[in-house]
């Protein structure tokens, strides 16, 4: 396991570099939008990765509620946090793309807006995790994750219908992708998925370390204050973890 991490890091770095080369050089230039369309190769894979991470978060949350396995909860936190990072990138690169192409920073496009709502939901998820008392946090957060997941399709439909009533500039989509573009997109997605996996792995280890420290603190906290008797009996009853 320990050896795997650096190997994977090297592979991911190479993959990211290659994907960047593909996106900048190999991919054909889009006719109407020009080079700026290449943002697509970062914007879209980031979005897909974020959605994937949120999906894993949902599954982990459900598993946690059923099994009460702390590892599932740790996985849920990790995916939510890294997902929010990728989601932020989507929301930042989206307007940077929209500005030169349509002359506006933001458009209430279905996908972009759904992503925004998703981002809001998961930010509130992270806020909840921060502000609740630790013993109950995992349960509350898992429940919120389920509510968020139920909300997303409703958000999508409401914005989709809203858009059909209020015509606005149409973003991307439509028409078929140039096969060259599709290939580059997939390569980039693969690269970003590997990258996300690495980040999640590190974050997961960090989470586990943090829990270890908390547990050590908890088991230690009263010993210093209360003197000998508690200390003497501590090793006998200490949990085997």
């Amino acid at each position, binding site marked *: 396991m320990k050896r795997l991490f650096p190997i994977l890091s090297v592979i991911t770095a190479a993959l990211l570099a290659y994907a960047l080369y593909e996106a900048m050089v190999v991919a054909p230039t889009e006719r109407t939008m020009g080079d700026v369309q290449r943002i697509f190769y970062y914007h879209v894979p980031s979005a897909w990765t974020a959605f994937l991470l949120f999906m894993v978060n949902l599954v982990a949350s459900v598993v946690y*509620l059923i099994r009460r396995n702390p590892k599932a909860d740790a996985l849920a936190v990790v995916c939510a946090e890294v997902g929010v990072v990728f989601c932020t990138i989507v929301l930042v690169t989206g307007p940077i793309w929209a500005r030169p192409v349509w002359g506006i920073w933001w458009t209430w496009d279905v996908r972009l807006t759904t992503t925004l*709502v998703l981002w*809001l*939901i998961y*930010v*509130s998820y992270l*806020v*909840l995790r921060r*502000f*609740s*008392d630790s*013993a*109950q946090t995992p*349960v*509350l957060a898992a*429940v*919120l994750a*389920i*509510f*968020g997941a*139920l*909300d997303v399709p*409703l*958000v999508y*439909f*409401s*914005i989709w*219908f*809203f858009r059909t*009533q209020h015509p606005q500039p149409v973003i991307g989509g439509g028409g078929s992708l140039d096969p060259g573009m599709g290939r580059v997109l997939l390569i980039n997605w693969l690269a970003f998925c590997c990258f996300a996996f690495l980040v999640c792995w590190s974050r997961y280890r960090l989470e586990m370390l943090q829990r270890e420290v908390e547990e050590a603190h908890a088991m230690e906290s009263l010993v210093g204050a209360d003197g000998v008797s508690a200390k003497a009996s501590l090793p006998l009853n200490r949990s085997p973890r």
Partner: protein
Amino acid sequence: MNSLWAVTLATLKKDIRLEWRSKDALNSMLFFSLLVVVIFSFSFDPTAEESRQIAGGLVWVGFLFASVVALNQTWARELRNQVLDAYRVSPAPPNSLFVAKALGNFILVSVLEAVMAPLFIVFYNLRAIGPAWQLIPIGVLGTWALVVNGTFFAAVSIRTRSREIMLPLLLFPISIPAVQAMVEATRIILMGDGSARFWIVLLLTYDVVFTTACLGLFETILHAE
């Protein structure tokens, strides 16, 4: 099933009686909503034709803010003297507590809307061009949409630090589609601008989905400790 309804009714009756004796939630909410209406009419010129366009939004955002005040009060009563623990150690079904609280809030927020709506109508000189009767199902479904998740997330936020501020932080993102549906439906009817059917169906779906989710998960929340 029998005890489910018995406990729900008893809890609802108890809540109404307590509210009637203290009236703290009702009074603070009524005054708060009056302030919302007045401030909105200062901020958005009520005489302009454009304010008709956004009136639907104003009404519902006003209700949303006012109901957050109410929802924060819901569980405050149960936390005083830790009475909630007495419920939690009893064999009474958790969902009875949830349904009673949600119904109680529904009544409270409806009263509030009944007071606020005429003020909006007066200040903004509103009249419906579309079928006005449809505002009733929109009002009922929309209020339930706010209240059902509001009651649930108020129960979540009492388990956090700084609980008063947590409720809107959790509730608003989830409520976005419901709020959009209420606002659009109301706007369509006020402007006489086509059919509000899609939005009413969306609201209904939202209500069904989240009522089910709340009933399914409330026990988990109540006993999360």
